[in-house]
C-alpha cells in the first residue's frame, strides 16, 4: 500500500474506532499509559495497520517504512499513545530483524508489534553511560549458551518487559567495543532482579536490572560474538528516524495545546516564534530523514543532527509551557496541570538519554566534520 492510501484508510479507521481506542479513563500513572499503549497496539495490529512497513518474514504486510512513520504520527497526534514508550517498538524491532536468526525474529517481532509484549534496552551501567564501550556486565560461555552476571541501570520499562536487548562483555575490557556481544534475554529467566527507580517527573520510567548467573541460550545471540557494538550502533539510526518523527507529532500537538490554553499576554511573541521555528526545522529535518530511510538509504552519524534538534525543540516547547502556564506547571494538581508538570520535567532528560547532547556534538565533530580525534 502507498502512503496516501494508507493515510486515508488509517484516518478513517481511527475516526470510526475513536471510542474503542480512547483511554478508558484519564491517563496518569505509567501503568495506565502502558495499558493504553498495549490496547492501541493490539487494535491496530488486528486491523492490520501495525503490520504495514514491516517485512513479511516477521509477520508484517510489507510496504515502505513511511507507513510506520505515519501510523505513529497519527496515534500521537490524536493523543492515543505517548511517543516515548511507543518508540521502543521502532528501535528494537529493526534490531531483531537485522541481527536475530530469522526464526527468532519471526517468532518474536509479532509479539512486540501486537502489544502482547514490552521489550527493553539494557545498555547503560552504573559505571558506563556515555562511555558505553567500557561496559562490564559479563557473559561467559557455558556449554551451548551464555551465563550473564552484572548490572544495568536506567533501563526504561524493564519492570514491564518480557525481553531485553542486552549488551554484555564477552571479551577482555582492554579491547573496548570489540569485546561486546548483544543478547536477546527473557526477563523471566531465573537470576534477574528488577528494581524500578523513582524519577523526578513522577513516573518510574526506568529500572536497575541485576543479573546473577543468568542462563541465555546460544540462539539468543544477536549478530556474532564480539559484534555487539555494531548491533548497538545500527540501532541508533532507527531510534533517530521514525521514532523522532513521532516525537515531532507529539511536540506539534502539545505546542498547539499550549497556544490554545494560554492566557492573553502570558507569552513573549519572540520566544513563541523561536520555538515554532525550532520545531519546524526539526520536523523538516526528520521528514527528510524518514524519506531517506524509505528510499533504502543507510542512515548513519548524520542522524546525530536530528537528535540534537529534537532535544532542543522539546526543551524549547516545554520552556514555553513553563513560561505560559506557570501556575499549572508549578502549583496545581488537576490532571491537565499534572501532565504539563510531568512533561516539562521529562523534557529535561531529552539532552541526556539516547546519547547526551555533548556526545552528539562529539560525533558530529568527528564523523561529519572530520575533525579527527579529540586528543
Amino acid at each position, binding site marked *: 500500500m502507498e502512503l496516501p492510501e494508507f493515510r486515508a484508510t488509517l484516518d478513517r479507521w481511527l475516526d470510526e474506532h475513536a471510542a474503542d481506542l480512547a483511554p478508558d479513563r484519564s491517563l496518569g500513572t505509567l501503568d495506565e499509559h502502558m495499558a493504553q499503549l498495549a490496547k492501541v497496539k493490539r487494535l491496530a495490529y488486528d486491523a492490520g495497520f501495525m503490520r504495514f512497513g514491516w517485512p513479511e518474514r516477521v509477520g508484517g504486510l510489507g510496504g515502505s517504512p513511511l507507513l510506520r512513520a505515519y501510523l505513529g504520527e497519527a496515534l500521537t497526534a490524536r493523543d492515543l499513545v505517548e511517543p516515548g514508550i511507543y518508540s521502543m517498538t521502532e528501535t528494537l524491532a529493526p534490531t531483531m530483524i537485522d541481527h536475530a536468526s530469522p526464526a527468532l525474529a519471526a517468532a518474536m517481532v509479532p509479539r512486540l508489534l501486537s502489544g502482547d509484549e514490552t521489550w527493553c534496552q539494557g545498555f547503560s551501567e552504573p559505571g558506563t553511560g556515555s562511555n558505553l564501550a567500557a561496559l562490564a556486565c559479563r557473559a561467559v560461555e557455558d556449554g551451548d549458551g551464555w551465563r550473564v552476571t552484572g548490572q544495568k541501570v536506567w533501563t526504561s520499562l524493564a519492570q514491564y518487559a518480557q525481553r531485553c536487548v542486552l549488551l554484555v562483555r564477552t571479551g577482555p575490557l582492554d579491547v573496548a567495543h570489540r569485546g561486546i556481544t548483544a543478547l536477546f534475554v527473557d526477563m523471566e529467566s531465573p537470576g534477574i532482579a528488577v528494581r524500578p527507580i523513582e524519577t523526578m517527573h513522577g513516573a518510574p520510567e526506568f529500572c536497575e536490572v541485576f543479573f546473577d548467573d543468568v542462563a541465555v541460550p546460544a540462539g539468543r545471540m544477536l549478530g556474532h560474538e564480539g559484534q555487539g557494538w555494531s548491533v548497538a550502533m545500527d540501532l541508533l539510526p532507527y531510534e533517530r528516524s521514525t521514532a523522532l*518523527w513521532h516525537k515531532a507529532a507529539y511536540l506539534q500537538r502539545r505546542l498547539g495545546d499550549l497556544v490554545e490554553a494560554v492566557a492573553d499576554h502570558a507569552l513573549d511573541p*519572540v520566544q513563541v516564534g523561536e520555538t515554532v521555528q525550532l520545531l519546524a526545522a526539526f520536523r523538516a529535518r526528520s521528514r527528510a530523514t524518514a524519506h531517506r530511510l524509505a528510499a533504502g538509504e543507510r542512515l548513519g552519524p548524520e542522524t546525530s543532527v536530528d537528535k540534537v534538534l529534537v532535544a532542543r525543540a522539546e526543551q524549547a516547547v516545554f520552556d514555553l509551557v513553563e513560561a505560559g502556564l506557570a501556575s499549572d506547571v508549578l502549583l496545581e494538581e488537576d490532571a491537565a496541570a499534572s501532565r504539563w508538570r510531568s512533561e516539562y520535567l521529562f523534557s529535561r532528560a531529552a539532552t541526556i538519554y539516547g546519547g547526551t547532547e555533548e556526545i552528539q556534538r*562529539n560525533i558530529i565533530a568527528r564523523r561529519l566534520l572530520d*575533525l579527527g580525534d*579529540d586528543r
Partner: protein
Amino acid sequence: MMEPAERALFARTLGAATEERSGAALDAALLELGWRDALTDDPRAAVSVLFEHLGRTASTSTALDDVLADALGAGVGADVAMVYPALGRAEPPADEDGGRLVVKGLGTARLLRAGTALVVARGPGGDVGTTVKTAGLRVRPVLGMDPGLELAEVAGTATSASPPSSLRPGAWSEAVSRGRLAVGHQLVGASAAMLELARRHALDRVQFGRTIAAFQAVRHRLADTLVAIESARALLDEAWDDSRAETAAMAKAVSGGAARAAARHCQQVLAGIGFTTEHPLHRYVRRVLVLDELLGSSRSLTAELGRDVLARRRLPSPIPL
C-alpha cells in the same frame, strides 16, 4: 524540470562562474550560461544552486532582480531593475495614490545603471506594479557594512512611465517568498563557507602542542554551526515543497539565525587571523549581516510569527509526511 545530470552540470558551471567572476562580469556570464531560462524552467533548482554558490563565494550578482521579476510575472527577457523594501521590511517599497508613487527602498547594482525600475506599490485599490524612470529618484550607491554587495538606496516621488497594472492579491507576497528563499540559500552558502574556513584553520593551527581541532570547546562550536546550517537547509527544502508564505518566512529567519551563529562561532575559532582583512572571513561576516536584514530579518520575522501564532491561537499547519 531539470534531470539530475543536467542539474549537476548546471551546478558545476554556475559554481565555476561564481568562483571566477563577480559583479557585472558574473551577471554577463550567468546570461550566457542560461540562468534565466533555468529560472523559468525549474526555479527551485536554479535558485537553490545559484544562490548557494553566491553565498559560498561571496561573489556579487544582480540575479535576485530576476527572481522577483519572474515571480511577479514581469518576464526576465530584459534587465529588470527591482526596487526592494527598505532594510528589515517586506511591504512593497512604495505607496501609490492617483498614479503618484512615494518610493523608499533598496536595489541591486542594476538600479544604478538602469534608466527604469520595476516598483510594486501599495495603493488604495491594492498593489500595483509599474515601471518608473530612475532619473527622477534619488539613487545612491551603498557602501556601509558590505560595499562588495553593491546595493543601492533609492527614495523619492515618481510618476509611472507606463500606466500601473493591478497585481492580483498575494502576488507581492509570493515574490517576496521567492526572494526570501533565494537569500536564504545565499545565507546558507555563506555559512557553509565560514564553517569550512574555520574547520581548515582548526585542523592547521597548533597551540599547546596540538591542533586546536582537538579542543572540545572548538569542536562543539563547529558542531553547533553545522547543526544550525542543517536546520536551515531542511526548512528551505520544506519551503520549496510547500508554497505557503509562512514557511518561506520561517526558512529565511532560520537561515539568517544560522548565519549569525556561524559568524559568531567561526570568528571565535579563527580568532586573530579571522579579524584581519588578509583573511576572507570578514567578507562573509559583513555579507550575512546585510542579507539577514534583506526582505525581513530573522529578528523581525520571528517576532511576527510569534504574534501571528498568539493572535490566531494556532500553529502553522505543517506539510504532511
